[in-house]
């Protein structure tokens, strides 16, 4: 919503400064988005008067002038042909910023003569293209005064600030210059002028009829429809002042007849439509028939549904009521007889139809927020006046169908509620006075008030709304801060288990050298498909771009895409992680929090030769460290094969508890890397934080530290097993063979080659036994060793290497 200060002042008597008006607008909830004040940029320029203008001693085309600032005379060298004694000019003194260059003016020397100022052309001030000479102000301009008024007087500057206000959806009543003036007046910033519109007497009976043609269930769609015919008009451009005003507030001037409707809409918030009366029959408002079409003013043909209101004649729908008129029934240059439509449409009907048809128009904007039904007839009269004034002609009698909707229901309002909800003490009389100034009808009946909202307010239907009205006009600045009561005692922890897990995982993974990324939740469908997603249930209906159309099944594709972008910048050795959602369907709550890490890169060119290609054991370590940080204990569940298809089938694994996969890891499948155009090795892990089991409640106390006094024993074994036997199975067999005294099992060598049969490998393990009650005898150790060998042999089919 844009308006100019002078337009506002047509409705509001006020001496307030622009700054005060802006501050008040903000304080009453009409947020000022922008103010354009052409004069403000020229505030340092003053009116000067050329006292003398002599020839420059060293140049034929330059003049040496003496220019009065009102307090002194400045010597200025000027090349303009019209620089001459006696004229009043726009004067820039040293330090003033010249708009066209953006530079501050300096004292200069021109052909050996000092010049201490500049007389400006229109172009130098960005006020026009004229650069043939300097601006000549009118002779009554006051020397030494700021130039804004003089420029305005010379017709070069509209010194009228344009104020742009953001109107919240509840405040349809403020979507007009009149509405803004009304709210400012209620807030004490001036006096609202009379908005009464004198009726125009009809010269002849209206030759057309209006009917409301609604079934009972749509009775509220259009309670009142008024109109009148004006014959003998001459269309053409609107008056110059209207065109200028429209230009200032961003409206397009089309023709006098159309501009009348836009003027009344902008000025008073009353949308209207003007038909070419010779192109329509008798008018009616009704619901559209399903499939009925209208060619609208925007040249588009709309196919309507039965819940859309139309204005029609006997033959056809003419326009979409309250939203957009029809192309072939509108007013054009050759129009001589017009019929003005002024009606009230139900906001809900307009909103539904507007949304369905996807039409955005000023009329829809106002009707769906609610216009003032009481202004249906005054609006019609105002339009009549303007058409007669701008286009001539004579008006018929007014015809009306239906009647005004009933006034709003009264609200029972206890003034004490202002303090209770608003936290601000406002005297009862002040509350009543504020409401009355806003147009509410207040009946004071003892304790509670009966308050009827004005016809132009559709957003007030309860006591809280009235508190808001009182508080916004009284001033939010007077609300005093009151501390929230705090619980006695030490603050309690507030994070849930899931939140603590995510936090621990984040810090642990970052501590391992990963950089945390946060990526979009939506990705390209073909990328999602590589990770088990991309199905119809996880599509967005209205993606912002075709490559952001699928909910991601895991953050991993986002990290891969980021890795590719970084690689393109020459950063291909990286480790990125993200803790965020992966979506399993398109249903609410069907999402998992997945801690995902990605390492990419070749062995670094490292003098110490300590680096290697990103591989499965890197990410296995990362994953186990993160799991330990999250659960508080080393992960004891075994690792098995079966990672999903985006991993290298032979270099990946999962950790599962029963059927629940809690984490998966591995090198990425070459096809996935190719899809992301990644040319370096890459390995990743995904931890499903929600799938991790509850920690067992063991109390806070740790078990007693009870180190054994007996010497631990280490024994090494080497088993020859088939190549495909998992080392983890050997370890598991050892653990099963000796439970009581086993302290740990470590694999310290894996060998294939000479000395080991083809298709086999030698796995060397170190077993540490911890006696607890007595030192073991050699025979006892041998017995345990034999049990271990037997256990491993049985479980793996291998044999002790000899």
């Amino acid at each position, binding site marked *: 919503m844009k308006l100019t200060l002078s337009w506002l002042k047509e409705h509001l008597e006020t001496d307030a400064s622009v700054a005060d008006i802006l501050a008040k607008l903000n304080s009453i909830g009409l947020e000022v988005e922008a103010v354009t004040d052409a004069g403000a940029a020229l505030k340092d320029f003053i009116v000067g008067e050329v006292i003398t203008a002599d020839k420059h001693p060293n140049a034929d085309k330059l003049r040496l002038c003496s220019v009065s600032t009102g307090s002194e005379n400045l010597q200025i060298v000027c090349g303009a042909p019209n620089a001459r004694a006696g004229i009043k000019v726009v004067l820039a003194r040293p330090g003033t910023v010249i708009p066209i260059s953006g530079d501050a003016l300096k004292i200069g020397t021109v052909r050996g003569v000092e010049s201490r100022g500049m007389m400006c052309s229109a172009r130098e001030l960005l006020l026009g293209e004229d650069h043939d000479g300097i601006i000549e102000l009118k002779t009554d301009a006051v020397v030494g005064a700021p130039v804004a008024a003089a420029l305005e007087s010379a017709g070069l500057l509209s010194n009228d600030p344009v104020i742009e206000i953001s109107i919240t959806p509840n405040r349809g009543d403020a979507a007009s210059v009149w509405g803004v003036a009304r709210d400012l007046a209620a807030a004490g910033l001036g006096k609202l002028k009379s908005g009464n519109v004198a009726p125009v007497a009809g010269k002849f009976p209206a030759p057309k009829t209006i009917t409301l043609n609604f079934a009972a269930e749509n009775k509220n769609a259009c309670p009142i429809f008024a109109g009148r015919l004006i014959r003998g008009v001459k269309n053409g451009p609107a008056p110059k002042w209207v065109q200028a005003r429209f230009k200032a507030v961003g409206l397009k001037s089309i023709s006098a007849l159309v501009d009348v409707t836009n003027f009344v809409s902008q000025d008073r918030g009353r949308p209207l439509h003007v038909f070419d009366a010779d192109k329509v029959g008798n008018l009616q408002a009704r619901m559209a028939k399903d499939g009925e079409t209208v060619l609208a003013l925007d040249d588009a043909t709309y196919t309507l549904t039965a819940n859309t209101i139309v204005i029609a004649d006997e033959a056809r729908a003419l326009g979409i009521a309250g939203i957009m008129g029809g192309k072939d029934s509108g007013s054009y240059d050759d129009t001589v007889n017009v019929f003005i439509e002024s009606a009230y449409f139900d906001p809900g009907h307009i909103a539904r139809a507007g949304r369905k048809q996807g039409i955005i128009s000023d009329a829809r904007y106002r009707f769906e927020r609610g216009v003032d039904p009481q202004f249906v007839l005054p609006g019609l009269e105002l339009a009549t006046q303007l058409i007669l004034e701008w286009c001539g002609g004579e008006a018929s009698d007014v015809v009306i169908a239906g009647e005004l909707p009933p006034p709003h229901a009264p609200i029972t309002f206890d003034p004490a509620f202002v303090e209770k909800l608003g936290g601000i003490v406002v005297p009862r009389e002040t509350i009543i006075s504020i409401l009355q100034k806003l147009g509410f009808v207040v009946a004071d009946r003892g304790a509670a008030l009966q308050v009827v909202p004005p016809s132009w307010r559709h957003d007030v239907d309860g006591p809280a709304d009235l508190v808001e009205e009182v508080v916004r006009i009284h001033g939010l600045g007077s609300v005093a801060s009151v501390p929230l009561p*705090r619980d006695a005692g030490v603050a309690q922890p*507030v994070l849930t288990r899931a939140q603590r897990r995510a936090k621990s995982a984040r810090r642990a993974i970052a501590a391992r050298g990963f950089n945390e990324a946060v990526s979009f939740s939506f990705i390209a469908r073909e990328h999602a498909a590589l990770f088990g997603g991309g199905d119809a249930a996880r599509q967005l209906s209205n993606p912002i771009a075709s490559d952001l159309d699928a909910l991601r099944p895991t953050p991993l594709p986002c990290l891969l895409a980021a890795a590719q972008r970084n690689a393109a910048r020459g950063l291909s050795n990286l480790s990125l992680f993200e803790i965020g959602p992966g979506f399993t369907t398109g249903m609410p709550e069907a999402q998992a929090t997945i801690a995902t890490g990605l390492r990419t890169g070749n062995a670094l060119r*490292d003098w110490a030769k300590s680096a290697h290609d990103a591989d499965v054991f890197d990410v296995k370590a990362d994953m186990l460290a993160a799991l330990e940080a999250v659960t508080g204990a080393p992960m004891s569940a075994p690792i098995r094969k079966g990672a999903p298809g985006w991993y290298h089938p032979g270099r990946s694994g999962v950790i599962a508890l029963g059927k629940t996969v809690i984490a998966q890891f591995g090198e990425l499948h070459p096809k996935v890397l190719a899809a992301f155009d990644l040319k370096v090795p890459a390995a990743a892990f995904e931890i499903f934080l929600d799938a991790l089991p509850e920690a067992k409640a063991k109390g806070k106390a740790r078990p007693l530290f009870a180190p054994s006094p007996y010497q631990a024993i280490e024994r090494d074994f080497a088993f020859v097993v088939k190549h495909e036997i998992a080392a983890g199975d050997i370890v598991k067999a050892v653990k099963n063979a000796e439970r009581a005294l086993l302290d740990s099992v470590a694999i310290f060598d894996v060998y294939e080659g000479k000395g080991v049969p083809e298709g086999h490998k030698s796995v060397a393990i170190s077993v540490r036994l911890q006696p607890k009650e007595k030192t073991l005898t050699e025979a006892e150790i041998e017995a345990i060793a034999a049990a271990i060998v037997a256990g491993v042999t049985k479980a793996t089919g291998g044999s002790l290497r000899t």
Partner: protein
Amino acid sequence: MSDIATLQSDLLAQVSAASDEAALEAVRVGALGKKGSISELMKTLGGMSPDERKVQGPLLNGLRDAVTDAIALRKSALADATLEARLASETIDVTLPARPENSGTVHPISQVLEEVTAIFASLGFAVAEGPDVEFDDYNFTKLNIPPDHPARQMQDTFYVSPQADGSSHVLRTHTSPVQVRTMLNSKPPIRIISPGRTYRVDSDATHSPMFHQVEALAIDKGLHLGHLKWTIEEFCKAFFEIDAIELRARPSFFPFTEPSLEWDMRCDRSTPGKIVFGQGNDWLELGGSGMVHRKVLENCGIDASVYSGFALGFGLDRMAMLKYGIPDIRSFFEGDLRWLRHYGFAALDIPSLEGGLSR
């Protein structure tokens, strides 16, 4: 000079002259070995008269001790020299770089969320979370935004394709549905914050289709705008770590609050690219707030005649941008390693009230 004295000075000279351990050992054997010069002299003690022995004994013992000590000293010196030589030979260039390691970082959004959480936790607010894909009912209708309300146009919504069961859902446009879920599932008093990802069909220089919000909700008996104002003031002071903040409230509109307010903070933006809080003539929009609408309370099963409450919300990304001087919201989500390293936080840089939110 006696023979003994001569022998001692001779032997000590040999010890000093020994240039390595082998030479020193030869000296030792020559003096103290079985047939060494001192050993031979010691053997003569047995054939002496008691008086003679009384004189010669101490002299010979002194000789032996002196030579033994000298050998030990020389041995230690030679060992030190050997070690020094070895160490000298082991010298390497310590200006070579350490083995390569990457320094990890935490994303500014995570960091700022931890800061916000710490502040609100101290005021007794728990952290509530909800899904990114939401029921239309929770995202809109229960929040007093009926299907055709113009307020739906305030939030351009992403819709998820219809599901197999015919249902259709939205990507939440704000984290307010988490408030709905909390109110439906718990009884007042309620104090929560609800942080998370939010989505709107909006993408330009200052908007990202995904961003982050955090909202706070307090429901109790007797809460009013004064409590809301205090909470926002205290939060801003703590978050920006500036005591001299100045806030301005403007009436606004949100369907789920009544009255509704937006908050601005005084700042100075006169230096391009820089914001100084607590001074200047500019105002910076912080976020929206208000007293929870009666209809929202009722929709969520809370007796509005007994309880009142306030809600407030702001953009987490925006708060991170303001506090840490990050210019472009879109850059948050690009995964640019250079950006992550530049704006990220060290892994163990954990915000806390007792230690300070930031360094």
